[in-house]
């Protein structure tokens, strides 16, 4: 299982981070930070990195700036 924003999803091997978060409608977009096990993953690497079983992903949405 993997966890995205507190919800569990089945783990599929050979799935990239981008594919995993796409199921939530998230596109490769620099306004959404993808945090994997506490580390921010640069958005241009999302489609290169494979997720591991048990990973915890948080999606943080940039709404402001300063």
């Amino acid at each position, binding site marked *: 299982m993997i966890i995205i*924003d507190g919800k569990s999803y089945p783990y599929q091997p050979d799935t990239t981070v981008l594919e995993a978060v796409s199921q939530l409608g998230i596109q490769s*977009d*620099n*306004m959404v*930070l993808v*945090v994997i096990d*506490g*580390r*921010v993953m*640069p*958005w*241009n690497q999302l489609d290169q990195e494979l997720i591991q079983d048990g990973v915890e992903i*948080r*999606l*943080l*949405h*940039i*709404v*402001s*700036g*300063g």
Partner: protein
Amino acid sequence: MWSTLNINMKNLTVSREPFPDKYREMGGRGLIAQYMMDHVPPTCDPLGEENKLLICTTVFAGTNLTTAHRISIGGKSPLTGGIKESNAGGYAANLLAGQGIRMAVVEGLPDTDGLWLVHINAKGEVALEDATAYEGTNNYEFVDKMHEKYGKNIATISIGSAGERIHRIASIQISEFGEGYPSRAAARGGMGSVMGSKRLKAIVIEKPETRFEPEYADRETFKAVCTELNKVIATGAKADPFRNIGTIATIEATGLSGVLPVENFSGKLFPEYTEVGANKFLTNLASRGGRNKQICQPGCVVKCSNVYNDKEGNYLTSGFEYETIALFGPNCRISDLDVIARMDRICDDCGIDTIEVANAIAISMEMGKIPWGDGEAAIGLLQEIKDGTEFGQLLGNGCEVVGNALGCKRIPVVKHQGMAGYDPRNTKGTGITYATSPQGADHTAGLTLGRAMADTGRAAQGYASNKLQVAMAFADSMMCIFAFANCVPSMPLLADLMAGLYGGKPDITRVTGMGVKTLLTEKAYNKMAGMTEADDKIPEFFKTEASPATGSVFDVGDAELACILNF
């Protein structure tokens, strides 16, 4: 009934008067705009007798709305020559409101040499005290001394040596809630020099014995709506990178897209930005006992602040923010977060705008005064400001002054104010805001990153800048813009709050109208101060030099800029 604290530096008197009814439904940026229009001649000398320093809090002062106690400091800016509202967090606004003070007005210049501070004690008594003992004392030491004298239940609004020397980029530092570090900066526009020109060192506010309670038109409705809105903001904040990491998270959005300024706004990419990015920041916090998710004022549910320690685990700085990191970092080709933190500390201590001085340092690097990427040399330049050397004096007056002195052709300013951490070629809407905001190159006035279509394109960027400038103008009259960003889905509740507090109908145009009115008032003020459409321009080099990261130039024409703030 709310009071105005009148601080007359000519007569050396301080008194409380009833807060004028005509400003009843105003606060923050909106209040400053109207008050300036009513009381401060637009053609006055910003460092002269007629300018006033205005310190106020928001329209929701005294209530439990989260972040209602932002502080707005305004006047005529010695940097831009126009109206300025400089906004900060910290504890002072909360205590001013607790003391029943809605606004403080500092006017006049003393006839005699001296330095003073205003002290408001726990009983609400106000006094103007001699502060010559603190002359030349920088903010951290000053706050320590105030803690020794008055205890820790205080807030301070103070200037450091930069303000005392009347440097045009001097900040006013506000102490944070909790430890009281003077790390929240009302930085932009040189309000610290206005305070310094009036020989006012600080305002020290003790926590009142009895907290002032505002009058509500409908207290129960207000409370219910306030609880709901606070919940909405808290829920949004859970997924907000500013809460989970800090404002440094912005670099993860700007670092790969050419928005992050690199090497004096060269428009290049800086792959080493990860050395000063979110992951490095979090690692350093975790391994050194630093903290994020900190509040700067009581009741904040966004919690974007932080405490950053050095390698030995000792306190180094707090309120360590994206703009400072971007502009001292990649824009100077510096990739050492600790060096930047030291610079942040120096700036907070002597009271100087990090954005301005960082731009000045980048220009100094471009012109060969010090090497690119040399953090220690950059710290050396900051030390020159503290030491008051000849070059330090130049630095203290902003990046345009430094640029002109060194013969630099690439000076990133609008209305003489340095740009923030966003390259206008790669976030054109933000560039439009820089150009057209009455505040000068101010990103908080309307940052359009990710809000319209492609950031490097023109489509909808003007629209986004217009909408955001209105929104920020009323948000800066009500609460922290980070809290506001998380309450946008429930914006009508702000109208309910206005009605609950002030009476009348819960009409959203009361809120949005505040934004439009503020902008129009500021524009009118600037016009009377002598500004023209020629001041609404992005520097030429952004139009001719393509950003190597994206190929983009700033191609929004003058005719398009001219109608951005038409209503």
